[in-house]
């Protein structure tokens, strides 16, 4: 599919909302105009980032089964989207993520052991046990505090981008939402504000086919795609193979460059599959078809990038095994460190008195009295 100029008129690329941007073919070749000029090292880095996310998820799920954390959500099958988009963002840009983009932190080099402290809600949890395990927050790494209330962060991302533009800044925002949450009014408010004020924002819709138990068509209605949502707001909208790391990188780079050049928002629907359960509290066996992941036509993002590296002669089984071992070892080492600081289950949490901090900048009288009552 053609790759339009950054400033192409929205009417001339309107049909991209019905199509699918892809780079990797079934043999692992990078083909077509969207194939990015990415070094081999960066492609290997992408593979390593995704494998690290997957290894992290697997270890945290095991920690949940071991009774060391109260709750966990994995991003199995969706790793390419967050990992690749993070690589086109720059320091100072701001993501407004959902709970299924841990790849944004991991691909940015955030300390994984700190994520683990939070998953365990242990005494080193940077959020002091206030948030669910997977609702991370890091201003330094451009990762806005995850809400857990769906869609609320979409207009916030647009507002952040508007502020950047108002200040003559070149920083951009990336908004994140699952396809199910596009049903919320906040999503539409965000698109309208992005359109009206031409905010420098990437509007990501991760279509992983499932909103807990309901298939994507409940939120989509009679539209053909989620990218269709951009059309009514005259926001350039792409529909992209979200399991194709190179396509994600390329489409993200296009959208980021548009935003950074003051050409306005871009909406991208990433087509992918939530391979795992919604969360550790979910049992998808009662509502999902068997073999869905194996039958999913877009395959697995890690396998596809690995196959690509093999196809271009830059990878083999031995290097794959070495990388896998490195990822697993790093996760094991980090978890051993985090585990040594206890967990919510073992009672090694932040001091309960700290729950009264940060409600306001300064502790008001009523909270001071309540804190005194709580500890006496």
């Amino acid at each position, binding site marked *: 599919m053609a790759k339009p100029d950054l400033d192409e008129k929205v009417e001339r690329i309107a049909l991209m909302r019905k199509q699918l941007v892809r780079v990797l073919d079934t043999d692992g070749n990078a083909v077509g105009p969207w194939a990015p000029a990415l070094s081999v090292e960066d492609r290997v880095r992408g593979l390593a980032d995704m494998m690290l996310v997957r290894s992290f998820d697997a270890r945290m799920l095991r920690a949940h089964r071991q009774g060391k954390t109260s709750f966990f959500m994995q991003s199995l099958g969706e790793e390419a989207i967050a990992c690749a988009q993070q690589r086109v963002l720059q320091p100072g840009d701001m993501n407004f993520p959902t709970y299924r983009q841990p790849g944004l932190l991991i691909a940015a080099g955030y300390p994984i052991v700190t994520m683990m402290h939070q998953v365990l809600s242990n005494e080193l949890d940077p959020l002091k046990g206030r948030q669910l395990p997977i609702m991370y927050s890091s201003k330094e790494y451009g990762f*806005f505090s995850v809400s857990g209330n769906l869609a609320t962060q979409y207009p*916030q991302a647009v507002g952040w981008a508007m502020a950047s533009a108002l200040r003559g800044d070149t920083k951009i925002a990336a908004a994140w939402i699952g396809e199910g949450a596009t049903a919320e009014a906040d999503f539409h408010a965000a698109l309208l504000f992005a359109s009206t004020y031409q905010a420098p924002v990437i509007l990501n819709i991760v279509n992983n086919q499932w909103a807990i138990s309901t298939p994507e068509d409940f939120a989509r209605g009679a539209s053909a795609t989620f990218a269709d949502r951009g059309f009514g707001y005259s926001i350039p909208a792409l529909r992209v193979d979200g399991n194709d790391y190179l396509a994600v990188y390329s489409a993200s780079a296009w959208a980021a460059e548009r935003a950074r050049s003051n050409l306005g928002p871009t909406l991208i629907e990433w087509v992918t599959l939530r391979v795992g359960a919604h969360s550790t509290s979910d049992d998808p066996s009662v509502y999902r078809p068997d073999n869905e992941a194996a039958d999913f036509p877009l395959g697995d993002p890690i396998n596809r990038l690995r196959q690509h590296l093999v196809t271009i002669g830059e990878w083999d089984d031995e290097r794959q095994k070495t990388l896998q071992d490195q990822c697993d070892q790093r996760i094991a080492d980090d978890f051993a460190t985090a585990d040594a600081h206890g967990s919510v289950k073992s009672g090694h949490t932040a001091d309960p008195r700290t729950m009264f901090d940060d409600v306001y*900048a300064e502790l008001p009288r009523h909270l001071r009295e309540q804190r005194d009552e709580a500890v006496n």
Partner: protein
Amino acid sequence: MPSMTMIEAIRDAHAVAMEADDRVVVFGQDVGYFGGVFRCTQGLQERFGVGRCFDTPISESGIIGAAIGMAAYGLRPCVEIQFADYVYPGYDQIVSEAARIRHRSAGDYTLPMVVRMPTGGGIFGGQTHSQSPEALFTHVAGLTTVVVSNPYDAKGLLLAAIEDQDPVIFLEPKRVYNGPFDGHHDRPIVPWSKHPLGEVPEGYYTVPLGVARVHRPGDELTVLTYGTLVHVAEAAANETGIDAEIIDLRTLVPLDVDTIIESVRKTGRCIVLHEATLTSGFGAELSATVQERAFHHLEAPIRRVCGWDTPYPHAHEWDYFPGPERVGRAMREVMAG
């Protein structure tokens, strides 16, 4: 010292804040070019440009959501919701997001932002232009909730709210925009130019958040109230001849407990007034606070005089409004009790 209406004082507070700090941005429905349906932002766009004061689509969740993002970026948004009755589509953004982001990010992200909105009835606005939803905000951890009653405080409190490091809900009873309305709807309107609290200093000053004001000192009865009912209480005190001490709370959360308790200990009697519906209203919080901290000083049960627990009516507005007659009756009953 110039005399200002509350509208002019609020407008002036915006201008002074925008002059002092270029991070202050002002927006909302009809706020920019037109200057707001109550004219509270008139002239700001012309003076500071469309980048500092601008119109928005009719989307409260968009307005408040965008303000949160802007505050997280480092600006100081001060947004207007056209009527408090319209805030509900943006309520989730206030309750689930603005109020909690400092806490849930352990102080990593903070939101210095103000959400202004006109409240209260008395303008034949019916149920969609008359509500007083302060209790829906005071019940939320992390919010500061202000209700203003006069031009002097309105300017100083708005400047303090814009300076504050956290989200402030700023409620403006629209019936006192143009004068100290005392509930006598059938009498001529008294303008702010004839009231000492209509004298508003030029330039920058703040009225601290969390500090109540003794509106009228007295020895016989403490009246805890805010907004329009401050002036209604004053009329009722004058008409009954009861030496009531009227406390204008100004900030509901955090509450100035010391001023309240000091007064009740002195008078031994207390009534609580607000225009909002009675049940689960902020008056219940005030009543409980007095009972917990000054029970042995009370010589009579605390009485609440509030809006009835009905939607705000149109034709029967003055049957609904807790005017000076109802307030005066409660004052007499508490004095007799």
